[in-house]
């Protein structure tokens, strides 16, 4: 089975976001594999263990993403590609999907797995956009996956409910929390990762021009949400409190 995983390098979930000069500063920030992509990597390795084949992890990003790719290789992926996007000036999700579409043009694919969203921009667009461009079906927010006879039976999370979908391969799926529990890379896995192939590609290698992949969106401003105000505790008998609460919701919060 030809199994591909789309991976993004993102801020560690414990990092504090600092905005400087209208952009998010990455000074001294720890990076990790986007947690949703980690579910995708785990699922890909499980598919390989069950059905055989090869797991290839692809990322579009900066050189530093090699570290996260090596971690994926240490977990058990077989090879990795880093597509360098540093030359693209105005970059967004349409750029990533355009670049990935060019990458997949000559690839034989049975399944592509990605995270449902990234924990930084959180748009959830790259997977579906890529599937559209490759003209293959896609299923998002999956929490269960079984494959037999080139047919995938997929459980997906629909706002707390579950839906079961059957789809022919090739297919693109995006992973939701609950799909699996990602493994730790084992020590032998870590030591072997350095010998596994990791290829760095430039846009040129994909016959792409920087202008072709310029983003379609424009960032006007970047700012942090307002600081949370202190709450207020109502006092008195329960009935008085309820009356007071309803009044405040009407007059102050203006939500009812």
């Amino acid at each position, binding site marked *: 089975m030809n199994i591909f995983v789309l991976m993004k390098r993102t801020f560690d979930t414990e990092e504090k976001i600092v905005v400087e000069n209208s952009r998010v500063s990455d000074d001294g920030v720890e990076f990790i594999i986007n947690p949703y992509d980690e579910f995708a990597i785990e699922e890909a390795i499980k598919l390989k263990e069950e059905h055989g084949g090869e797991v290839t992890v692809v990322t579009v990003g900066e050189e530093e993403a090699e570290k996260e790719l090596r971690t994926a290789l240490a977990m058990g992926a077989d090879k990795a590609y880093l597509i360098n996007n540093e030359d693209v000036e105005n970059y967004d999700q349409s750029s990533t999907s355009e670049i990935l579409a060019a990458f997949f043009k000559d690839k034989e694919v049975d399944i592509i797995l990605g995270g449902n969203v990234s924990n930084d921009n959180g748009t959830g667009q790259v997977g579906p956009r890529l599937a559209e461009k490759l003209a293959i079906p896609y299923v998002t927010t999956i929490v269960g996956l079984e494959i037999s006879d080139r047919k995938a039976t997929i459980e997906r999370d629909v706002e707390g409910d579950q839906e079961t979908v059957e789809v022919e391969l090739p297919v693109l799926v995006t992973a939701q929390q609950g799909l699996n529990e990602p493994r730790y890379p084992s020590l*032998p896995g870590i030591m072997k990762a*350095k010998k596994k192939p990791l290829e760095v590609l430039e846009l040129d290698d994909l016959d792409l021009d920087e202008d072709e992949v310029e983003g379609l969106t424009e960032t006007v401003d970047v700012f942090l949400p307002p600081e949370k105000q202190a709450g207020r505790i109502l006092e008195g008998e329960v009935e008085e409190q309820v009356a007071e609460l309803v009044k405040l919701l009407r007059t102050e919060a203006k939500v009812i």
Partner: protein
Amino acid sequence: MDFELSKEQEMTRRMVRAFAENKIKPRTLDIDKKAQFPKDLFDEMGALGLLGLPFPEKYGGSDGDTLTYAIAVEEIGRVCGSTGLSYAAAVSLGASPIYYFGTEEQKQQFLTPLAKGETLGAFGLTEPNAGSDAGGTQTTAKLEGNDYIINGEKCFITNANYASILTVTAVTGKDARGKNMISALLVPADTPGVTIRNAYDKMGVRGSDTGEIFLDNVRVPKENLLGDPEKGFKQFLYTLDGGRISIAALGLGIAQASLERALAYAKERKQFGHPLSTFQAIQFKLADMAMEIELARNMVYKAAWLKDQKKPFTKESAFAKLFATETAFRAANQAIQIHGGNGYMREYEVERYLRDAKLLEIGEGTSEVQRLVIARQLGC
């Protein structure tokens, strides 16, 4: 000079930290309070390749170096001293002597299951009348036909109750000058005549197993002699040099945990209307802790690096062990002080750091013995 860790070392730190935070941390209070050896965690660590970290793949190891191993011990020690100590002892004392001095057959038979984490090993050196004074060893091994018959008693042996293979030191004869020759022998724990007892109620590292071993006419084939019978003494000195790096790394982990806890508490706890961390008396304590920890880290990593470069490291591993473990004790003590009354309570964990750190100033050569080792290296 290059202070950068390799990608593999970074990745290992990240993996071990995640494992320690997610799997060990939720249980540390229990491990200490109930003095329960967390056998299941060692099974998981074995599956991750941690127990075979510094051994070659062909013996079931992970092919890592000493520095990577030190980082792993540091990260486990940062979360749980008990688990850290048993881990360090399993690798440095249980498995390493077989790797350093074993024959090919001994490595295949005894090292491989240890490196794969299928079972644990223990190193029986200390006796009621012989610790750092290894020359005082009273256990004997007499050759009778093709077997050694071993008699004696060992005490304070880490992981003994969970070990399936024991490396035991014993007097095997006298050398040309009439001095006792001390050799090491491999003794499967299920050999008739071996009795292992859990006899201790310890101050710290309570979840790390410690046992007494009694050897009563224990018969092992003479092929179970480990290494050169005439150089047994030198061999375990080398083993202890390596072990010191891991105990130093464990001290580093406990010291780091002490600083992190103390710093977080000092920033949160308010007195006289201000966080503790705004008071100079507290700031100076934290500054000293951070400085000593970084110095200890440099020394521990350097000793590990020297060993990996196959350069002499006896003096440096003694420096590292002495300084890192005393740093751990001081840092834990100051962490309690910064926590005030809360620090004396078990749930705040810093009191455990102090109890655990105290063992590190004693085990695998007391601080005084480290100073002796250093002085001898200086030519005294």
